[in-house]
């Protein structure tokens, strides 16, 4: 198989059905160190797409190739993927420290090294003061940083984020935007995040895919979201008229 060395992930004609909903014929690839955003309405299949990419579901058709290998053939514990759910999914019976240390501990890393690594990453995410607290006592922003630290301590090649900023207040949100850029630089990982916030996607992603009713309608560079040629469904979703779109393209700006 021909595999581009800069390509980390390749989704080829992916179709996944869950209940009455299905993702249909999804195609896109992700380069190393790229941030890719999927935008879509609630119920458009964003989470299902992310979970399918993570290999939680066997595709009904097509494949998810990760480093050239079908994702479902790689055991979950060998995928080197970080996944951040919308509700962060911290282990409620463990302290923030134990949550972050979970991965290294499972892999048999010596205790002293775990301590050092957790302290280092906690300092990076400014959560050193809450390490002995349980998730139930943490704010949304703190929980998110713990969840990110838990995922990134394993140095994943790919980080999947499911609406990571939807439950945060505006100030915390802005801090987290900066943190996402920092994560890419410091951890050298590719990111896919799904959101329904266009501005968020434009600001953080290199490329954006628009998902409508389980169909990926197109992928554009983030600065071309409003000026690209879209079909009527996407134009309606983005809230742009044909005239607006032409104006944006002519002026080389976003709405």
């Amino acid at each position: 198989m021909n595999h581009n060395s800069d390509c980390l992930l390749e989704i080829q004609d992916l179709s996944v059905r869950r209940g009455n909903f299905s993702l249909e014929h999804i195609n896109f690839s992700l380069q190393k160190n790229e941030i890719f955003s999927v935008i879509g309405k609630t119920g458009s299949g964003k989470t299902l797409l992310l979970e399918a990419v993570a290999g939680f579901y066997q595709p009904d058709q097509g494949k998810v190739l990760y480093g050239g290998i079908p994702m479902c053939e790689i055991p979950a514990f060998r995928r080197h993927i970080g996944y951040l759910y919308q509700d962060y999914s911290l282990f409620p019976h463990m302290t923030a420290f134990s949550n972050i240390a979970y991965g290294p501990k499972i892999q048999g890393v010596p205790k002293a090294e775990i301590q050092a690594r957790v302290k280092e990453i906690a300092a990076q995410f400014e959560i050193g003061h809450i390490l002995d607290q349980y998730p139930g006592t943490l704010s949304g922003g703190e929980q998110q940083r713990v969840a990110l630290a838990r995922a990134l301590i394993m140095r994943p090649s790919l980080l999947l984020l499911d609406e990571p900023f939807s439950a945060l207040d505006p100030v915390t949100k802005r801090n987290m935007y900066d943190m996402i850029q920092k994560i890419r630089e410091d951890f050298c990982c590719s990111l896919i995040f799904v959101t329904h916030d266009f501005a968020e996607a434009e600001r953080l992603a290199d490329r954006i895919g628009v998902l409508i009713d389980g169909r990926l309608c197109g992928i554009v560079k983030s600065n071309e979201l409003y000026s690209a040629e879209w079909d009527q469904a996407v134009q309606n979703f983005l809230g742009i008229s044909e005239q607006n779109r032409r104006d944006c393209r002519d002026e080389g700006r976003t709405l």
Partner: protein
Amino acid sequence: MKRREHNIFQSACMLLTLLTILFIGGNIAVIAFRGIRSLPECLHQSETLFAIYLSIKSACISSILCFLLSIAVSYVLTKTRLFCREVIEILLELTMSLPNIVLGLSMLILFSSPLGKALKSAGFPVVFNSSGVVLAQLVVNLPFAVKLTSTAFRGVDQKLERVAGLLGATQGKCFLTILLPLCKNGLISAFILVWSRALGEFGATLMLVGVTRMKTETLPASIYLDVSTNNLGGALASAFILLLISAVSLGIANHLARANRKLSRYES
């Protein structure tokens, strides 16, 4: 107006609760008041002590076996892709609606077959033997235990296990570090309920091992024998002992569940 409706509803519920307490409490009071009088005499009889010993021993063994099997079965039912899952679930729960005596009868037929004879010659007699008590309790409790443990497993958010998997946990480690600790309370309660049911099991035991003094005499069997011989005091004393054991076990279960809730701090 709304407040008045609310008060009427609450009062009606309170009244029904009171009736329920009177209904259950009345039975407990009869056993306690009449049983306690014969208790000292009863506790000096070797038959009663044997019945207490056999009841507790068989209930402990059968509950542990039942629990281990139900954990494995529930894991397969709730966490793996299984062909005909619904059919298997119905099959496993089907016997819950059968009278225990029918289950005992089917066990009697099963273990009277060449299989039972082979087991007997291998040194594991079941029919009319105290080891049959354990099997009778097991067959009665297994569907119930599977239902309880499956419910506990289903209550754990699947996302947590997925995250653990991506962090490097194998299925076994995920089970030990995420699933088990998170349903600890449910599992403890399930174990105590199963144990209490095993302690009071009679129908299946009667059919499979009969009721023989100092051989297959559990506490319920002892009550049956005492009633048959018109020893009502002895029967109610044995019933009172069963009540005491149940009260202690339920108390321990509630205490453990409370302690675990505090420890894990699911809610802050």
